[in-house]
């Protein structure tokens, strides 16, 4: 059960690009995808900045080759998962036992919320086609069916750690020799439900977010999807190209402190990171880069930073929050940021944290603010910490 699990392909769509190449370009050129709401019909339109994927539903559906009647969550998922599979270029995929382990929090809520006004006025009203794919699992199956994956399909929903959990669950299925290939990751699309929900928690920044900045005021919601194709070594032997890297470590731990707030000393975060290191057999000093959860809320950055201070001190790896580019993509963030982490290893690059002007006073480290090339990036730790104290860390390592 310790057989290596490789990453053979990646796919991503976010506010900063509709595919991997576009996202990389934006990351290198400091181009954030945050701006005014354009797609949702909401009273918060000019007040709350978000990071939307820059395609409306018609454009997205055409790209995904799916119906415009389907949830945006499914459309995003399809685009990224398809890119990942194509990128993996596995010869004779049909000979392998293949799984689709996806995650989301919104499900088909963007469509469900168009159903409800009519339904609430009259229980016989509202178009059934808008509610039929409400469930998180329905979104997954729409894409699994499109990709022709049947051997194992499931959906995880643990708030912001969802797709990170999906990735390592997929890896474990390979290690237990249940599957040979797993497309794993997650997706989430913006919806009024989510936007208003987060607004009631008063953790949204009404300006562009400033993760790991002393004067940070909150997060910006984003949307997107990120998937990786995980494979066993038997499959790896059949590939033309080398895999990107290995998934060498992972861990999920629970903060068990409060429903939405993280503990001040980041107990859950620390356990997740330590657990991932233990699994990978690495020491803190082996980590070259941390892709922070770094949402930009007072609470998360304080908690995550404290955990890092306690675990890594006194030698800190480079670290940054790419949520300063993509916003917080909720259920997708684990997948999106794992993809960015894989690319960091592949290209030897370090991403900056945008708009970081004043580092947090309490911490003896500063997140990176400049894009760097030609860096030896062998081991990357990526964090995803969600509501309900659900903390997950993944470690990706050069082969």
């Amino acid at each position, binding site marked *: *059960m310790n057989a290596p699990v490789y990453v053979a392909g990646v796919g991503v769509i976010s506010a900063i690009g509709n595919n991997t190449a576009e996202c990389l370009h934006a990351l290198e050129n400091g181009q954030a995808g945050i701006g005014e709401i354009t797609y949702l019909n*909401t*009273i*918060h339109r000019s007040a709350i900045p978000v990071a939307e994927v820059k395609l409306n539903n018609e454009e997205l559906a055409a790209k995904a080759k799916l119906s415009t009647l389907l949830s945006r969550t499914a459309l995003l998922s399809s685009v990224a998962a398809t890119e990942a599979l194509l990128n993996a270029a596995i010869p004779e995929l049909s000979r392998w036992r293949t799984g689709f382990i996806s995650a989301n*929090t919104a499900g088909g809520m963007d469509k*469900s*919320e168009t159903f*409800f006004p009519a*339904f*609430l006025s009259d*229980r*016989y009203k509202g178009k*059934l086609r808008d*509610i*039929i794919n409400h*469930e*998180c*699992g*329905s979104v*997954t*199956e729409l894409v699994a069916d499109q990709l022709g994956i*049947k051997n*194992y*399909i*499931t*959906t*995880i*929903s*643990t*708030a912001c750690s969802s797709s990170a*959990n999906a990735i390592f*669950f997929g890896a*474990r*299925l390979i290690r*237990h020799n249940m599957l040979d290939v797993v497309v794993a990751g997650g997706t989430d699309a913006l919806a*009024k*439900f989510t936007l*208003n*929900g*987060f*607004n*009631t*928690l008063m953790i949204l920044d009404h300006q562009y977010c400033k993760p790991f900045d002393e004067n940070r005021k909150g997060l910006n919601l984003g949307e997107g999807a990120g998937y990786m194709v995980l494979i066993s070594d038997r499959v790896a032997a059949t590939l033309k190209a080398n895999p990107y890297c290995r998934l060498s470590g992972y861990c*999920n*731990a*629970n*903060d*068990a*402190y*409060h*429903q*939405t707030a993280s503990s001040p000393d980041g*107990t*859950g975060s620390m*356990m997740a990171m330590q657990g991932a290191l233990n699994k990978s057999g690495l020491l803190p000093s082996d980590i070259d880069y941390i892709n922070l959860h770094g949402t930009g809320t007072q609470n998360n950055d304080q908690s995550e930073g404290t955990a890092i201070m306690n675990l890594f001190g006194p030698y800190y790896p480079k670290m940054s929050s790419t949520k300063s580019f993509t916003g917080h993509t909720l259920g997708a963030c684990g997948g999106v940021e794992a993809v960015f982490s894989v690319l960091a290893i592949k290209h030897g690059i370090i991403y900056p944290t945008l708009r970081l002007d004043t580092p947090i006073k309490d911490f003896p480290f500063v997140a990176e603010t400049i894009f760097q090339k030609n860096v030896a990036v062998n081991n990357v730790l990526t964090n995803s910490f*969600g*509501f*309900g*104290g*659900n903390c997950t860390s993944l470690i990706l390592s050069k082969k």
Partner: protein
Amino acid sequence: MYIRATGNISPQRTFGHPAFLNEALEYKGNRLHCAEPDYRQVIDVKYIRRMSRIIKMGVAAALECLQEAVLVNPGAIITGTAYGCLEDTGIFIKKLVENNEEMLTPTAFIQSTHNTIGAQIALILSCNHYNNTFVHKGFSFETALLDAMLLLKENEAENVLIGAADEITDYSHDILSRFGLYKANLSSNLDLYNDHSKGTIAGEGASFFVLSNQSSQTDYAVLDAMTTFYKPQDTATIKEYIKEFLKANETTPEEIDLVIDGRSGDEKGDRVYKELSADIFFSNATQISYKHLCGEYPTATSFALWAAANILKHKSIPSVFLNQSDTGKHTRKILIYNHYLQVHHSLYLLSAC
């Protein structure tokens, strides 16, 4: 793997470990409702005030299960729920529509996230261990169970708390009814299998288990294996899956004493169960169904697993299980076969301890 303990809130009297299904609660119409305890006796008041019904159901069933296992800090907490927290979702959406996005309350939003049950259990227990929630329709419970079994195989945990919960709300029942899922006129859930019309009855419930890789004196049963398969083409394919499953677990059809099937009263959906039972394949086994007791819902197999575990523990099959063809055999090996809306199929194999 051993089923060490259970906790179950269902439309039958199952909470509080009463006598095992010595009578069946009868329901008219197409909607069952859980027989719920006074939650204040089970859950600390300071946690209850925010909990909607499904969270109370899940937490109460989990706490009862842990109490039976004498376990305060399980090695993992894994839940499965297809619909999540519907009531809170409904409340938040309703307010959103009625108030036009103003003056919305955070509690309903927070509680609507799918992993709330698992998270609340962890909070109450101060449990920092692995915590996951699966939300995949008719596989939600099965994937949660698979995750638990894998953790035990990996020795990442010795005891795992694993369960499922799904609820019916007025909104969800109206919506699912519009999809034609339910029978229009059913006089009694106990007549479910005699009614040959389209549709089934709506159920709900919360069932939790402690699964362990160490045996103990008080185990219910051995969980030998579980598997799932998706959209099989026809009954012949299903039969192959069942054969392979048994073979992989060194079991022959003749060794199965009891088959628990997922008959739901829906004419079309039940055909496969009838075809399989007519087949010589299961002629050796007593066959029972369970959905007249708990109704049909995506995680109903958690009720079936609870029933199977109890049948092995109590060494008898209560007479409330209708549709019986009773061979009078002593039950030592049970096969559960279920499908949800003919899409999500699962098989479980259990043995007596």
